[in-house]
């Protein structure tokens, strides 16, 4: 399990999530699959240009298809009307999955220099903090409804 986790999250020995120390270890490994090395990387390499790139058109079509399926699942959850308290958490999980799919693969953060991931992730953290702070602030201020 730990090994699989390493394969999924690591970037040729340099952890994808590790903050790079120098410019030299920000280099993008050219022969690594989108989700790691070994057998999983080999399987993914089928979807790339014979290992010379991280992802090719087939892979992008696959990601696009998965994102479309997730959208369909969201609407299905909406139409189901029987999920009760699970409805919002399920929708949020599906939205986060789509968000990560676009950011990691379409915006290339999974393949790009890790510093960009850190940069965007830190912006997201601050953005979410602003979001939560505003919610608390305005909810507790008993803002009057104007119309």
């Amino acid at each position, binding site marked *: 399990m730990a090994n699989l986790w390493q394969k999924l999250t690591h970037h040729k020995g340099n952890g994808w999530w590790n903050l790079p120390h120098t410019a030299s270890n920000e280099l993008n490994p050219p022969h690594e699959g989108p989700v790691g090395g070994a057998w999983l990387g080999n399987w993914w390499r089928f979807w790339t240009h014979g290992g010379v790139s991280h992802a090719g058109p087939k892979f992008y079509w696959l990601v696009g298809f998965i994102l479309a399926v997730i*959208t369909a699942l*969201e609407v299905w959850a909406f139409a189901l009307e029987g999920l009760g308290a699970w409805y919002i958490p399920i929708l949020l999980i599906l939205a986060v999955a789509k*968000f990560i799919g*676009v950011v990691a693969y*379409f915006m290339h953060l999974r393949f790009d220099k890790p510093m960009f991931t850190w940069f965007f992730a830190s912006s997201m953290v601050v*953005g979410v903090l602003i*979001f939560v702070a505003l919610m608390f602030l305005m909810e507790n201020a008993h803002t009057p*409804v104007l119309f």
Partner: protein
Amino acid sequence: MTQAVAIDHHEPIENTSTGLNSRKLMMWAFLGSDVMFFGAFIATYLVYRGKSLVGPYPSEILDIPLTTLSTFVLLMSSLAMVLALHYVKDGERNKGTLWILAVVVLGAIFMGFQFYEFREFGHLGLTPRTNIFGTTFFILTGIHGAHVTIGIIWMGFMAYSSHKGALRPDNALDLEIAGLYWHFVDIVWIVIFTVIYLISANDGPPPGMESMITH
């Protein structure tokens, strides 16, 4: 300054103190600030959610099947964008131009859906001045629509550039930066579709006030 040629191939270390391309870093910085910009508007929408005292309410006018279709269109425009970048980097000019044009067309279709939706809402009596739902809804989706419009114009220039042969593998970074902007617009819509449409679609008058409210 050395420009990054391609993500899919070995990228050079940029001649900057961070080793990152300055223009690309600038775009990520802008996107980071835009996260906070949209975060503030989404939070405002949620704070005022379900507090409108007059209709129309979300449950009366939101059209989920139509918005699902426009969401799918925008999602596919992101796919077209990443394919365009791939082909431009590979030096396949015609395919690159075609996919950039696909982004423009899909973006325009999305805006067509939004225009139709706004017009329908107007016919049903919902404007930014009708109630607090209208105000927060139109501001949030309108700002997103403005972002999409800017993206369409930008992609139009990129398509022209690619068609003329000015967009090549060695300066594909221009398209990559435009693409980051386009994908960002898509991920913002992912959040809007979930929060504004799917989660709020059944919202009616505030609880306990149904009998006091006039439409």
